[in-house]
């Protein structure tokens, strides 16, 4: 028998079966080899052509942009999903009459004239040929239902879910936040946008721009096979990668303080700006500019609204006056003059000057505001009552040297601050070299004179600066000579709330400020804000937190007096600098000081409630 296991299998019967199986195997391999030869060698050319003809189309899946939060996690910007009516132009009917009819129907549905529809399509094709054209965002569900029911009448029309920036606090911190919009052709050439494609959205201003790379996220991808007409091949879905949402950005801004600041300026109804900053690390607690705007308008602008925003040159709501303003500062500049004079030995804190209400230099007269004579004043008193004559004389003493300009420059006047917002202007620090250069080019009628330096000593004349630069200078006085890097970006968090990156910009430079001089100036400022006949005692006299503050009233040719107030709080060991300015706001104590008071109340009310609720933990 064949199957007796312990012996070797019987030769002949096994051999036959092995031979038959071997023959079958030879036949099968022959089939495979022949088929392979046939496909690759005999018909290879055709298949190669077919492979090269295989087209794919990639569809991007938009990644939601990261949220922007205030320092306490309050949402300032997030996304809402919106339904967008989109049209794939390649699917429009080929017959021109039918196409016209469809566009007319679409126009009716999206409240556009047929001409407008055609223009929208043409504009979109220019930017991103072949991409679906968005005809209208935020369409309602009724419209979707109608289009789906009548799909045959609307070939190529789809409703796509898109992300739109949403601002829960409407215009709050609009200048800090900035806005997003489609990347332009020029921007695409910049290295930082090299991975983007037409139609992608990027931050265009504010932190949306600065921190764009964190907020943006990575789009997903769907690749499908299409035929020569560009239509998807059924079953031809090749690959699908989900998008990676952008990370969240936490700002140093405190929404409550910001609200108080913006409210204080808005209540006065005049253009102006404010900034409140930690003097040790440069974190900006609040920064705003009045008038403001609702960034939603820039998300999906209608032409009329945009015109309104851009055309108004006087109010210029898009300008961030806190960083882009170019103003003389009036008397709040006097701390810089005082520092320069003290550190250069021009005066001591106790040097007494007789203030008779005015001085004459050559043919020019320089008088105190209102012509008041303050009598014999030393530094503290001069600051308390804001004696101009005292500082005129310092300006006069230093007009040939560059000492005042050197100190102003050291303190950050007329130079970029390193702020993490794209919108910033350098301003102008007038100096002998600057004016004489202009004069040699015949751009001005006279060279540098003592009068120029006298003006500068009280923050007048050609000086152009902004609240942020003054805040940095006051911060340096308060912290003893550290020039901080002001910033609004605090940290980047992922969707799960894990901190991915913290922003702690370095101190830009340090120099020595004599502690005695610093204390003398702060004493004068404290007296000005809260003691006796100090210039702002009427405003801050009843404020429970001791502060050091200085009013300023700047004459701006062609405008009304500009009101300023700068405060370091709490006195004598300040931690926060707060500065406000109001265009045409009159005396410093009239409008800027009350605005600062509103901001400080918001800061310290909050601290007080935090302390009481935490059982005095701080």
């Amino acid at each position, binding site marked *: 028998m064949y199957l007796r296991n312990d012996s070797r299998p019987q030769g002949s019967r096994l051999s036959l*079966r092995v031979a038959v199986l071997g023959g079958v195997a030879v036949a099968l*391999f022959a*089939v495979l080899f022949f088929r392979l030869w046939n*496909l690759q060698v005999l018909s290879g050319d055709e298949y190669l052509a077919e492979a090269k003809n295989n087209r794919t189309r990639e569809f991007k899946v938009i990644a939601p942009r990261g949220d922007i939060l205030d320092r306490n996690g309050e949402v300032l910007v997030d996304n809402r999903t919106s339904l967008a009516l989109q049209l794939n132009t390649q699917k429009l009917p080929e017959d021109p009459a039918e196409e016209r009819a469809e566009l007319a129907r679409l126009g009716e549905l999206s409240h556009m004239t047929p001409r407008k529809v055609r223009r929208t399509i043409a504009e979109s094709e220019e930017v991103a040929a072949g991409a679906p054209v968005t005809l209208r965002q935020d369409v309602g569900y009724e419209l979707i239902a109608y289009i789906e029911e009548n799909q045959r009448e609307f070939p190529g029309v789809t409703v796509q879910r898109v992300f739109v920036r949403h601002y829960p606090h409407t215009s709050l911190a609009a200048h800090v936040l900035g806005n997003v919009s489609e990347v332009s052709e020029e921007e695409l050439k910049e290295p930082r946008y090299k991975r983007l494609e037409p139609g992608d959205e990027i931050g265009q201003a504010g932190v949306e721009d600065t921190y764009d790379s964190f907020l943006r996220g990575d789009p997903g991808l769907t690749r499908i096979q299409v035929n020569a007409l560009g239509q998807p091949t059924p079953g031809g879905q090749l690959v699908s990668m989900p998008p990676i949402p952008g990370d969240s950005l936490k700002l140093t801004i405190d929404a409550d303080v910001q609200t108080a600041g913006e409210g204080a300026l808005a209540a006065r109804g005049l253009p102006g700006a404010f900034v409140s900053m930690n003097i040790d690390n440069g974190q900006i607690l609040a920064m705003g500019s009045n008038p403001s705007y609702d960034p939603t308008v820039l998300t999906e602008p209608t032409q009329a609204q945009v015109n309104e925003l851009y055309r108004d040159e006087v109010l210029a709501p898009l300008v961030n006056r806190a960083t882009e303003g170019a103003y003389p500062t009036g008397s709040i500049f006097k701390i810089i003059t005082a520092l320069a004079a003290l550190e250069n030995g021009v005066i001591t804190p106790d040097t007494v000057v007789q203030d008779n209400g005015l001085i004459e230099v050559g043919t020019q007269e320089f008088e105190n505001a209102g012509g008041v004579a303050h009598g014999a004043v030393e530094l503290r008193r001069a600051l308390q009552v804001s004696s101009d004559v005292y500082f005129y004389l310092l300006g006069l003493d230093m007009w040939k040297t560059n000492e005042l300009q050197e100190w102003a420059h050291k303190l950050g006047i007329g130079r970029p601050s390193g702020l993490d917002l794209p919108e910033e202007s350098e301003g102008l620090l007038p100096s002998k070299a600057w004016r004489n250069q202009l004069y040699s080019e015949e751009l001005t009628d006279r060279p540098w004179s003592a009068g120029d330096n006298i003006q500068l000593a009280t923050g007048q004349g050609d000086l152009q600066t902004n609240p942020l630069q003054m805040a940095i200078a006051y911060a340096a006085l308060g912290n003893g000579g550290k020039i901080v890097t002001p910033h609004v970006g605090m940290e980047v968090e992922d969707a799960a709330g894990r901190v991915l990156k913290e922003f702690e910009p370095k101190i830009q430079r340090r120099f020595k400020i004599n502690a005695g001089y610093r204390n003398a100036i702060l004493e004068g400022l404290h007296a000005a804000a809260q003691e006796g006949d100090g210039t702002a005692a009427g405003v801050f006299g009843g404020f429970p937190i001791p502060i050091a503050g200085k009013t300023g009233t700047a004459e701006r040719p062609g405008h009304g007096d500009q009101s300023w107030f700068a405060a370091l709080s709490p006195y004598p060991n300040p931690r926060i600098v707060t500065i406000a300015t109001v265009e045409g706001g009159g005396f410093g104590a009239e409008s800027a000081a009350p605005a600062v008071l509103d901001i400080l109340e918001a800061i310290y009310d909050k601290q007080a409630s935090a302390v009481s609720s935490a059982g005095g933990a701080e």
Partner: protein
Amino acid sequence: MYATRTRNARPEPFAVHVGIGERLGLAHMDWPLTIAAVSLIAFSVFVLGEATQTDVPGDPNYYLERQAIYALLGIVGMVLLTRIDYSRFRELRVGLYTFLCASVSLVFVFGFAARGSRRSFELPFFSFQPSELGKLLLVLALAGFVIDGARRGSEVQRTVRYLVLGLAPAALVFLQPDLGTSLVFGAATLAVMYFGGVPWTHFAVIGGALVVLVALVLVAAPAAGVPILKGYQKERLTSFASPNEHSDGAGYQQNQSKVAIGSGQLTGRGDKATQTRLDFVPERHTDFIFAVIGERYGFMGAALVLSLYALLFWRALRITTLSKNVYGTLVAGGIAVSLLFQTFVNVGMNLGIMPITGIPLPLMSYGGSSVVATFLAVGVLQSINVQAHLSQKGRFAW
């Protein structure tokens, strides 16, 4: 008196010096078989390394590294099996068979579902697909049953018994559902019966029954409202016959695979291979890896791979004739046919002449279960070869 010699002093029964190679059982390995198997897996690792760089974002060598580890595990397993006398598996046939049926049943309960079918267990480093190892277990167990029952019952009764024993696990795998592997189980069952001497007339009847069954499953049963195959399975099975009719579904994949292979021409497109790189061809690291080889390395590469499979099969078939006992012949025959069947069906599917059944290409497709199980099967073949050589020298074991 009892013997006073201690056990230790007992002399070696065979006073020959045994070399290290012989001790490891490597001396009587079938080297062409080893070379064919190792060349195929080496080529597999190479192809995966080149063609799947972008498949796993952030980990370009994902498939390469894993397949290399599976290859090493498989080779170690093969060498270990080479040293064992395969005849022991005959004694273990009931245990092996029980384990086979239990493991393919347990995936219904604990299995990891992928694309609507439960085929594998999720282990910490590895997803284990029992039906892959099952191919080898079925051959080892069934060959034992065939020899065991050789004298019981009539020839017809025996044939029916073998069929039931072989088709029971095949049916379980079919229900997972994994049509391709259940077909391999069926082919292995028929192969063991074939080498077990089942009469030709019985095979003729079985063949006739198969034709009727296919007709029933594909035509009659759906017409009567009792679909046995899932829709996609039927579509895959029939679309190769008329690819243009089905250019959207299963026929689409097969058409793209044909275009990929054809476009490779004589020498291949190398890194310009768009068909397989741009995802026109699905499952390029598993079922359609032959299309990747065809497109990237052309007729030269694909023919080389086919030649290695021919070599593999030839050596396996040769071992059936060398075996020291019938069990070895049946096991070698079962393994040889299941390798041939898988190779032909998979390559045929890539070339558009066989239906899409989801059978991986042995030693080439990515997948730990398949690679390791195939190496174990090759190890059993090696063991049969080694034992044949040793028995000719009058020895039973190492």
